[in-house]
């Protein structure tokens, strides 16, 4: 089994095919979308492939060390230039193929007009502990 991180972006990923901001959807469309995501997570829990998942607020900061005795620097007004992660899910699956299949399913969540949003999800394998056998 190998763990994969699915990253969902507010910004920074290529635009989805059905790319309509969520505040333009109907309440029913939002409802359907949320239910799809919940059902997806529940199914992964039942299949024993779910590890973790969280959504993140759109507002965040870049922070940097600014030298001895000085407060850390935050990026303040430049937020619009950055890649913004909207949330993640971690799965533990048998193969990369399975990870891709699941990410594809997640990307097919319904959006505006009830059609799949076709958004891009980033899929990244975890680095693991070294196996017992290395040579």
């Amino acid at each position, binding site marked *: 089994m190998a*763990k994969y991180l699915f990253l969902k972006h507010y910004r920074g990923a290529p635009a989805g095919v059905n790319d309509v901001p969520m505040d333009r959807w109907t309440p029913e469309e939002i409802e359907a979308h949320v239910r799809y995501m919940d059902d997806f997570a529940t199914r992964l829990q039942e*299949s024993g492939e779910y590890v973790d998942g969280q959504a993140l607020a759109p507002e965040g900061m870049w922070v940097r060390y600014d030298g001895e005795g000085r407060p850390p620097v935050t990026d303040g007004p430049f937020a619009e230039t950055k890649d913004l992660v909207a949330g993640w899910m971690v799965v533990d699956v048998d193969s990369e193929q399975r990870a891709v299949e699941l990410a594809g399913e997640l990307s097919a969540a319904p959006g505006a007009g009830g059609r799949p949003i076709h958004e891009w999800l980033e899929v990244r394998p975890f*680095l693991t502990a*070294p196996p017992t056998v*290395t*040579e």
Partner: protein
Amino acid sequence: MRPGEPVVTASGPAVDEAALRALVPQVIGLLGRRGVDFGAAEDAVQDALVEALRVWRTDPPRDPRAWLATVAWRRHLDAVRSESSRRRREETVEVEPAPGPVREADDTLALYLLCAHPSLTPASAVALTLRAVGGLTTRQVAEAYLVPEATMAQRISRAKRTVAGARFDRAGDVATVLRVLYLVFNEGYSGDVDLAMEAIRLTRQLAALVDHPEAHGLLALMLLHHARRDTRVVDGRLVPLAEQDRSRWDTALVAEGVAVLQAALARDRLGEFQAQAAVAALHADAPSTEETDWVQVVEWYDELLGLTDSPVVRLNRAVALGHADGARAGLAALAQVPDGVPRRTAAEAYLHERAGDLLDAARLYAEAARAATSAAERDHLLRQAARLNAVGP
């Protein structure tokens, strides 16, 4: 708590958890002979196990196995009664034939085979084996694989549903069991159970149960690898074979591994694990990388290629040939290994360095680092690249 380490409490004597876990397959087998299906038997014994860990500190039983069997049987009856399909299930229990004169060893072997059932995915087979044969709790298995306990519980119950009805008679073959145990061994460990030790314990038990030279081959391989474990990763850093402190290899484990291997080889039924163990034995035997009998290592890789034409074996053979016949010969052999084989680029970097092409080696080490699958391996490869870049062209 580590396996074999007693649980010491203020209120009473210690519980030997390893001895307790060793009873698990026997008790599951006993319930099986009373007609309980595998999934239900496994659940009941897990309940009894958790109860034993709680109660035995203050009230240790005279006969642990009988205690565990009695409690598991009661838990099973409770579960049967509370089921909606109670009547049908009770009837099933009633009509089961009386237990016959079956040896315990047969039960344990049947459990091994069932847990490695061909319809299970490798991950499910591993989880089920660790719980039913190894006697680990779901929490321990989950910790070892760094997943939530609920996830592991689902994985195990799905696995049990998959083999439901398979009973104790139809099952996988020993070769599949060996692959499952090797997966457990290779996982390293985390949490409070050392999976490598657990795999060795279970393989040792299996090798005593079956007449299969590869069971002994795998046991030898594990012992020989395990003997070198403490020198392979030091302070989180991966140490390559050439730089390992050979004085710290566990000579008792090496001696046992070699003895087990020789006994297996003497039976003249060579298999992959025996051939891999032979390579490991040659490394374990050598005072240094340079003094290793690389010619014989290459010969064993040739045997392995005869058994399984795997690109990974070709890769390892190329590296060994680089030592036996020189780096250029190794690189020529490596050219036959397809791209995309894990660690191919790292091996290429290593052989280029040995051939004196430091620039190419540095570039290839950096490239291999990007494809590394573990943090320790990536850091190791980055250090190699940095070392060569610091020397300069």
